[in-house]
């Protein structure tokens, strides 16, 4: 279980202080898929970097499986928004996916297996020898997802991973994430600014306020587990849920303006 308790992050440069996160508390159960959604500039990325152990919070704590996160914990993989910068251009797709496994000291034969099966899983069979920059944006993000999947994490953090791809690719990748989550039984924390995406993907949606950020509201997405782009998005239940999330986000924006 991933627990975030009273998380606060203040950036200070000189005498100026910016409170990015004020007080965040939420949990993600094992095997759950939780979407964090909030208005732009609400500190989503700061939150995710604190959760992944890349950034030290000012106060509060993050616990993964009971133990406090003080640096990047084992068993966690992050998919970044900037796939073009997160993948190493000097390495082939195969080497990119394999490198974290080498660092994890996975045996050679097992590495080969994991690289192949993860590339198959994201629909990139046969591109192992290409370089990331030879692929389209959507394919590059698939490579980044394959790299995370091959790492066999228990927890997968995704930081607005589809913000930079076109709408059609995005729909495909959303379905890919749902499928991988169901198959691999990983815990997924998915950060997005897209309300529809949050409701479509998540089993729970945590709504964040504007900066300085608190948890505005939470809701359980009681849509059927089998979702598809056409019918789920047209489902009255889906529309009702997205309206609720939308209203909360609007409310969050207004609260700050006062």
């Amino acid at each position, binding site marked *: 279980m991933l627990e975030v308790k009273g998380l606060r992050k203040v950036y200070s440069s000189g005498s100026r202080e910016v409170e990015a996160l004020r007080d965040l508390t939420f949990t993600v159960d094992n095997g759950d898929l939780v979407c964090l959604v909030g208005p732009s500039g609400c500190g989503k990325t700061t939150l995710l*970097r604190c959760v*992944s*152990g*890349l950034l030290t919070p000012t106060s509060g704590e993050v616990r993964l499986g009971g133990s406090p996160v003080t*640096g*990047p914990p*084992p068993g*966690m*993989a*992050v998919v*970044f928004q*900037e796939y073009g*910068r*997160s993948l*190493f*251009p*000097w*390495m082939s797709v195969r080497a990119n996916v394999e*490198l*974290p496994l080498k*660092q*994890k000291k996975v045996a050679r034969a097992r590495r080969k297996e994991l690289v192949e099966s993860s590339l198959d899983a994201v629909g990139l069979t046969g591109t192992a020898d290409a*370089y990331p*920059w*030879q692929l*389209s*944006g959507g394919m590059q993000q698939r490579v980044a997802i394959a790299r995370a999947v091959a*790492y066999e994490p228990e927890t997968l953090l995704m930081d607005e991973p589809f913000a930079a791809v076109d709408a059609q690719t995005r729909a495909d990748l959303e379905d890919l994430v749902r499928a991988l989550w169901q198959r691999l039984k990983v815990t997924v924390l998915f950060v997005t600014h897209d309300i529809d995406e949050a409701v479509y993907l998540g089993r729970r949606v945590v709504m964040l306020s504007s900066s300085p950020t608190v948890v505005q509201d939470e809701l359980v997405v009681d849509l059927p587990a089998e979702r598809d782009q056409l019918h789920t998005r047209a489902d009255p239940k889906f529309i009702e849920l997205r309206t609720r999330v939308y209203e909360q986000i609007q409310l969050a924006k207004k609260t700050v303006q006062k």
Partner: protein
Amino acid sequence: MTSARRGNPVLLGLAGLAGLLLIVELLPRLGLVNERFLPPTSRIVAALADEVSTAAFWRSLGDTLYAWALGLVLAVLAGVLAGLVIGSVPVLRELTASTVEFLRPIPSVALIPLAVLLYGTELGSTLLLICYAAFWQVLIQVLYGVADVDPVAEETARSFRFSSWGRVRHVLWPTALPYVFTGVRLAASVALVLAITAELVIGAPGLGKEIATAQNSDAVATMYALIVVTGALGVVINLLTRTGERRLLAWHQSVRGEVAT
């Protein structure tokens, strides 16, 4: 703007060179310059042919290349090592910034008296000058390279729990490599300049010394022939470093050219 209209760049380049050779041939023959100071191309070529057939020429060429290569290797090793260490430690970077800015612009030739004091007319003098000049070229580039590490790439490595060595080996080094190459390319040219200078001024063995000897013995055509050889060396060195760069940096934006996005 088609290349057909502009012509083949290699042919055009050769035509330009042929033009220069023709002018050098004609100027003294037409009496526009004194033959004593600029012999016609044909005589320079003849002198070059004579030189090439002597063992002394090849020994000098070998001496120059040896000093150049050894000096360059030492400077690159020192520059890369110092650059990686200084660049990765912010305190060191701050600490050395002004010192580097002070030492770097000192022309290497200003150290000739010191070199002579230390090593006389031996190889050591040449090496000192080459290393001093080439070292800064590499160091500065490596510092730029280390500063260019993409924060997202670095965070990716950290999130996958790369070891410190893993981060240097797989993130820092590949990022710095294009800069290292630029540094090596600049250093290779500077090293040649300093090698010839040291030989010419100090009299350390090599092509530079031969040029001075030819000038002293009034063998003007031979002097020009040797100058041509140093020029050719410069061209070959530049070609070699560029080819190496293209091979090893095929993945880099500056080399890979256009790709589908």
